[in-house]
């Protein structure tokens, strides 16, 4: 038996199919979820994929956060279901207050697409156990609104609790405070990050590295062993 991992498609989601592919390559079963459907169809975990849901109009993630599927996702996430938000998905998670802080436009005011070096700071979340803490990886990054901000109190708390999950190395691509690339909630089941692990799962394609695959193998192991 393998795990069923849902991938939500919002209108304007772009990396939903890629995320399903990554889940398949990791050996789990991807399940397409639709934003208008509250039913999570018995999935064991959910990924909110990248893209420009609702065109990023108003604020990235702001409109999607109010979709029917999110009602259930928010409820389930609070009771422990693993949820991963990638890029636009991360933005949805902050808008939904499942993760603290918020996302703003890149400080250089441009969209940026690059293969980004990161350090894994927390290898104990539901989505990162196949990494080791301190490991340096390269994951493609592509966003317009990737600047993570939160007040000092929140940032200090995140640091103190080990909830900064990923940090940008060598180059901060968007002006994120404290070089934060991704964070987790207190329980470690909800993780959000700006870079795109689903674009680093096959040699040859995209960045040509497979540094993103452990996200999906981590969750698979956790779910299958649970």
């Amino acid at each position, binding site marked *: 038996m393998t795990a069923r991992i849902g991938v939500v498609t919002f209108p*304007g989601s772009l990396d939903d199919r890629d995320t399903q592919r990554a889940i398949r390559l990791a050996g789990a079963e991807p399940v397409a979820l639709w934003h208008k459907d509250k039913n999570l169809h018995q999935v064991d975990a959910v990924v909110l994929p990248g893209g420009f849901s609702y*065109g990023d109009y108003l604020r990235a993630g702001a409109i999607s956060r109010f979709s029917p599927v999110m009602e259930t996702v928010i409820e389930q996430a609070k009771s422990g279901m693993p949820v991963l938000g990638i890029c636009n998905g991360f933005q949805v998670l902050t808008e939904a207050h499942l993760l603290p802080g918020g996302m703003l436009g890149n400080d250089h005011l441009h969209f940026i*697409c690059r293969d980004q070096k990161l350090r894994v700071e927390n290898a104990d979340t539901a989505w990162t156990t196949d990494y080791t803490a301190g490991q340096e990886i390269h994951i493609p990054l*592509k966003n317009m609104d990737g600047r993570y901000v939160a007040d000092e109190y929140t940032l200090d708390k995140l640091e103190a609790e080990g909830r900064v999950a990923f940090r940008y190395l060598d180059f901060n691509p968007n002006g994120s405070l404290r070089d934060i690339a991704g964070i987790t909630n207190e329980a470690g089941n909800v993780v959000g990050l700006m870079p795109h692990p689903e674009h680093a799962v096959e040699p040859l*394609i995209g960045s040509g590295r497979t540094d993103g695959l452990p996200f999906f193998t981590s969750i698979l192991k956790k779910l299958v062993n649970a």
Partner: protein
Amino acid sequence: MSRTPLDTVEHAAATPDVELPWAELGLKKDEYERVVEILGRRPTGAELAMYSVMWSEHCSYKSSKVHLRQFGEKAPQSDAMLVGIGENAGVVDVGQGYAVTFKVESHNHPSYVEPYQGAATGVGGIVRDIIAMGARPVAVVDPLRFGAADHPDTKRVLPGVVAGIGGYGNCLGLPNIGGEVVFDACYQGNPLVNAGAIGVMRHEDIHLAKASGTGNKVILYGARTGGDGIGGASILASETFDDAKPSKRPAVQVGDPFQEKLLIECTLEAFAEKLVVGIQDLGAAGLSCATSELASNGSGGMRVTLDDVPLRDSTLSPEEILMSESQERMCAVVEPEKVDRFLEICDKWDVIATVIGEVTDGDRLEIFWHGGKIVDVDPRTVAHDGPVYERPYARPEWQDALQADDAGKLPRPENGAELKDQVLKLVSSPNQASKSWITSQYDHFVQGNTVLAQPEDSGMIRIDEESGLGVAIATDGNGRYAKLDPYTGAQLALAEAYRNVATTGAKPLAVSDCLNFGSPEDPAVMWQFAEAIRGLADACQQLGTPVTGGNVSLYNQTGEVAIHPTPVVAVLGVIDDVARRTPVAFQEEGQLLYLLGDTREEFGGSAWSQVVHDHLGGLPPKVDLERERLLAEILISASRDGMIDSAHDLSDGGLVQAVVESALLGGKGARLVVPDGLDAFTFLFSESAGRAVVAVPRSEELRFNDMCGARGLPVTRIGVVDGDAVDVQGEFALSLDELRTAHEGTIPALLA
């Protein structure tokens, strides 16, 4: 709003003496008289609106048609061709049951007026052409030309254009995998914003723009119709027929990429369920174009109720609705029993969809408004029987003097130090410098199938995950070459794009083009245009790569001064297994560097002559298409058989530019030796066509040399991948750090 009286067909017949503002709508007197002759009466306002937009240069190709015919007449026999010129985009067979559609289009003028929206809606338009063929769009490319890099207006236009292309394409989820950025003062008031797109489908999913089957419904879906881009119709509406109109109609259209993304998804879902009989995107000339083309390509006629068109602005007149160029709209022909399902899918994606008419058994296009018939035409006369001009053309007097001003006479560097200095100048000049400040604003990764993207020689997309089947695309054009000799310049554009595709290991299959020129009313420009087409058609015939479609953009000039003739050529190729693609970057130290092809003293139009001497004169490099074909075969075989690990084609900037790029990308230097029979300057800077540099693992050296020898391709060993400098032995060395600073610093310094 009521109009007294409504200008119906009846009313028009009864009031033959009413004067219509045909001149303000851009029609010539004889064209208007032709319309009257076709109809046997004066046109209604709505009919005039349709004829005037459809018979415009942009829609009717009236100046270019007689020349464009050559692409068909000289088309090489190609088994790959599934749909040719005339449809929204051409379609080629790439094997394993897949078909690929691709096309390049211009959005030049709007991008000068409003760079962001102009460029964005250019991407939107070309993508709708691709969807309309039945394909899922999989990538975009963007060949761009701007004025001088240091001109203040370039700082306004370029960042806006790039942000617009990125803003739209990124939001659609289309990887941007290639393009060009060229600076030249000749584009100052006329930047060229060309955009290309590729789509993939199964053979059986190809769709065409035709309305067949009496009783089938015509469904308009997507954005509501607003008053975008209808300057002419407003005149018609306000001055002749109406009193209380809002005076302003936007000349610039604003794009909504989110809406277009929904349009893609719902259209593909409708295709998948086989709900669509015929389909057409709404681009230039909006509903006028969509209805007349669908009807004239189908078997019957069409009846449309204009009142049913969902509007963004309720004050629009019927003429304006017919001419509106509001973005993100499509028109589908659907069998009655499938209409409900089609509407359901649109609703699922929150896309507004409305039945606005149906296919009739007649042969007329009839359009109704407020119960009156305001259009009753033979759709062919609107869509296909526009005027055709044989514009006069003549080789300009200055052409001889320009060609006589030979770049070979320019002072050359005299020693290693001067060579070094000029190499640094070259690789840091705006045209040769790294464009990553621009291309990093484009998503290359989305869809998870990008094998190669900029700055590779061609972009490459995997289209089948199992087999690894992929397609490659490159776009090229060199206005300087074309100015010196438009016939040869167009062939060089094709040769370069063809070579770029082959350099990555893909087999070139077919061509699309975007022909950017000045005013066709200037005989000199018309000559450049005619020569370029003749050159391109001849070369396509010889290389066996048919032109499947393209776009013409005329009137790119300010006052009397036209841009350089700029034919931009896109070549599409196929590769059986993307795992065998050849990248530009040097892979491993110790690999041997070979130069393929012949190097001659060819500097006319070269980057060197521009950068060092600000000179344009002489003749462009010679074209040898048989050589290009042989070179391509060698590059493809070498990739298939694993004989080369990297390759880079030689074009503007010559060998040294190519080697510097491969070195910087791979983070590995090169030691070069000037071959016997060549001087260092010619070796480094010549722009002879038909050449590439390849890196050969030592284990493959013999096999590779044998293959080239057996097929008769000149091959010269020029050095080795080594160290952290580009070291031209006995002349100079430049460290990679120094080169990187020079190559990568220029564009950010100019624009950031």
